[in-house]
């Protein structure tokens, strides 16, 4: 508490607080902070003048734990980073290890990773769209998005036995091959899902209240987005066509054709629209993957006890929320010497104090929602 009071004192010195302005504590138990984020907002009536985010309520020493585990043992911990896109975390971590240990994985595993990864992106964006609907007061959108997300979770349950924390990927491929008929199920899901997108549009995109609420709000200029190192839909919403799947291809993404949607204005609407279109692109990628997937093994022959050669690696992937990087320093033992995660939501969140001031409380909720934070990943 004392550090916070000290900080408040400094803020008070910097800005002369008049009678009309008041500090409001938003979170960590607020319904719209998506977890345990705490924002101190200085309000002038309804208008936000200043915003100070406080993090760390979910800190659980992910990186330090990683330094005391064997390489394979870290995989279950990565599930708990961004728990809305666990498959992608698994992938990102395994990819870093594979690059470090120079393991190449079978073609079928590569294709399955892309299919599963893109399904995970859809699931993650669905959660985002649903909770963003909640932020704007549309509860029905939330339920509809969760309906389709459940189907993706069913698909993931079929392959991994888990619905949230999959731990499905392994260094060198996948834990198991997918069950018989699973690829046909994916196809059936895509056929069901594509028309649902226009159903969501009827509740959100086409609705004038929805448009008026988020257009021209929370503008993040391209230069700000770059200087704050934003990535993912945050960066693309500000008009910068940067997607690691295309600009720094990993896996077999160079074999797929897809567009990278960008928004011209950098407002909440653009970030919303980028994510909305990315779902369509993910459907396209999965369809291509389903057509081209070869038979074969899914796990490369790797040693039981993995030892990485001395060296370090920074490996990054385009997670649903942006650039998810894993930095591993290896000293030749069974455990990483240093293990660091570059969490996209943590970096994206740092741009929040730039976007908030001057908008109203209701906009603050929409802007925070458009950042798409997952506090488990922010705090690690």
């Amino acid at each position, binding site marked *: 508490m004392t550090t916070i009071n000290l900080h408040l004192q400094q803020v008070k010195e910097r800005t002369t607080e008049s009678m009309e302005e008041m500090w409001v504590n938003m979170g960590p138990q607020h*319904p719209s902070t998506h977890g345990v984020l705490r924002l101190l907002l200085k309000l002038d009536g*309804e208008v936000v003048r200043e915003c100070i985010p406080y993090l760390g309520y979910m800190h659980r020493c992910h990186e330090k734990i990683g330094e005391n585990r064997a390489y394979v043992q870290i995989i279950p911990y990565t599930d708990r980073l961004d728990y809305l896109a666990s498959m992608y975390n698994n992938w990102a971590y395994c990819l870093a290890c594979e690059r470090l240990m120079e393991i190449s994985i079978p073609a079928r595993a590569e294709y399955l990773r892309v299919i599963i990864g893109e399904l995970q992106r859809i699931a993650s964006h669905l959660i985002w769209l649903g909770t963003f609907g909640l932020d704007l*007061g549309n509860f029905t959108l939330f339920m509809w998005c969760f309906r389709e997300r459940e189907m993706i979770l069913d698909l993931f349950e079929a392959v991994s036995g888990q619905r949230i924390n999959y731990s499905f990927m392994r260094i060198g491929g996948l834990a198991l091959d997918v069950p018989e008929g699973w690829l046909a199920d994916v196809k059936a899901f895509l056929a069901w899902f594509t028309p649902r997108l226009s159903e969501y549009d009827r*509740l*959100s995109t086409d*609705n004038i209240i929805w448009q*008026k*609420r988020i257009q021209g709000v929370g503008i993040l200029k391209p230069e700000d987005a770059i200087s704050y190192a934003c990535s993912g839909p945050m960066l693309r919403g500000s008009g910068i066509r940067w997607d690691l799947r295309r600009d720094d291809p990993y896996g077999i993404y160079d074999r797929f054709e897809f567009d990278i949607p960008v928004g011209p204005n950098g407002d909440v609407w653009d970030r919303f629209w980028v994510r909305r279109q990315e779902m369509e692109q993910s459907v396209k990628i999965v369809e291509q993957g389903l057509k081209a997937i070869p038979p074969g093994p899914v796990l490369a022959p790797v040693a039981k006890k993995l030892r990485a050669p001395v060296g370090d690696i920074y490996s990054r992937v385009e997670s649903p929320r942006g650039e998810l990087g894993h930095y591993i320093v290896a000293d030749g033992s069974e455990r990483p010497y240093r293990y660091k995660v570059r969490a996209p939501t943590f970096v994206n969140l740092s741009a929040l104090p730039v976007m908030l001031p001057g908008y109203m409380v*209701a906009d603050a909720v929409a802007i925070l929602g458009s950042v798409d934070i997952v506090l488990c990943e922010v705090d690690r």
Partner: protein
Amino acid sequence: MVSAGALEQFYALFEAWGIPWIVPRLAIMLGVVSIIIGFISVSAMFLIWWERKISAHIQARFGPMRVGGWHGWAQSIADGLKLLLKEDIIPTRADRPVFILAPIVVFAASLATYVVIPFGPGLIVQDLNIGILYIIAISSLTVVGIIMAGWGSNNKYAALGALRSAAQAVSYEVPLVISLLGPLLLVGSLRMTDIVEYQGGTWLGILPGWLIVVQPLAFLIYFTCAVAETNRLPFDIPEAESELVSGFHVEYSGMRFAIFFLAEYANMFVVCAIATTVFLGGWQGPLLAPWVWFLLKTYFLLFVMIWLRWTLARVRVDQLMHVAWKVLLPLAFVNLGITGLLVLVLSPMG
């Protein structure tokens, strides 16, 4: 409800027994009030259950299914009992008398409006000759209770919610009243039964004689304002869950919260009942009993309100003000002006 003659006989009976005149009158008043409270409670509980079912079906779920058997019909009763039995919590820093009074004020204001709602011919507690004016005046008292709740809670979120509510209620009352003036000009009376009886005939021999036929714009303005008056989505910014947690009643729990909840649904019924009375011909309708028609029309409007709530997003506070002052108010004035002109031109000189 009871004809005046029967009442006089009832009073005379008591006087014959030597009981002071005030006693039977108080007894009648108490009876009427308990009937109204009973009706409000049952109707609000039904509405809550109904809203949960409608919203569930809009959202591809079932809603309450367990309590009471068929489609969880007893869910609201169970919830009410639970709220009754909960601990009564008053925050230490709260302004106790204001905090305790606030839900009572809100509920009393919505209770009082039921006095002049015409459920059917003769089915009206007191047919005041200023009926509609009375409703408008009394229902604006709700906002006093809301401000008391926001202030008394000593909570910033509650205060923000109360301030929003005050701004909203004041803004939306203006176009609401002016939109009602159009139909009232045609009727020429503020008495609720007169308004209903005016709509008895037909327009051009085919359309029902309802005022919505000649005053569609007024109806739209009224209904929009009514949604805002009752703090419902898309105008629910005083209790915006995702912004203010739940606005002015954030510190309330147990029965006090239940009373706020009850008052909200009671208010919804009132605004829809006024819309039915003024625009949809009140109890008028073929075949069915008048009160059935009245409830059918009112519940249809309530359904529209629930439907809106579960499919729209919330507007922002400045957009809310913009709609009230720059869109609805000018439109209401245009409607009133045209209506006044037509009444002047078409009515026989004399």
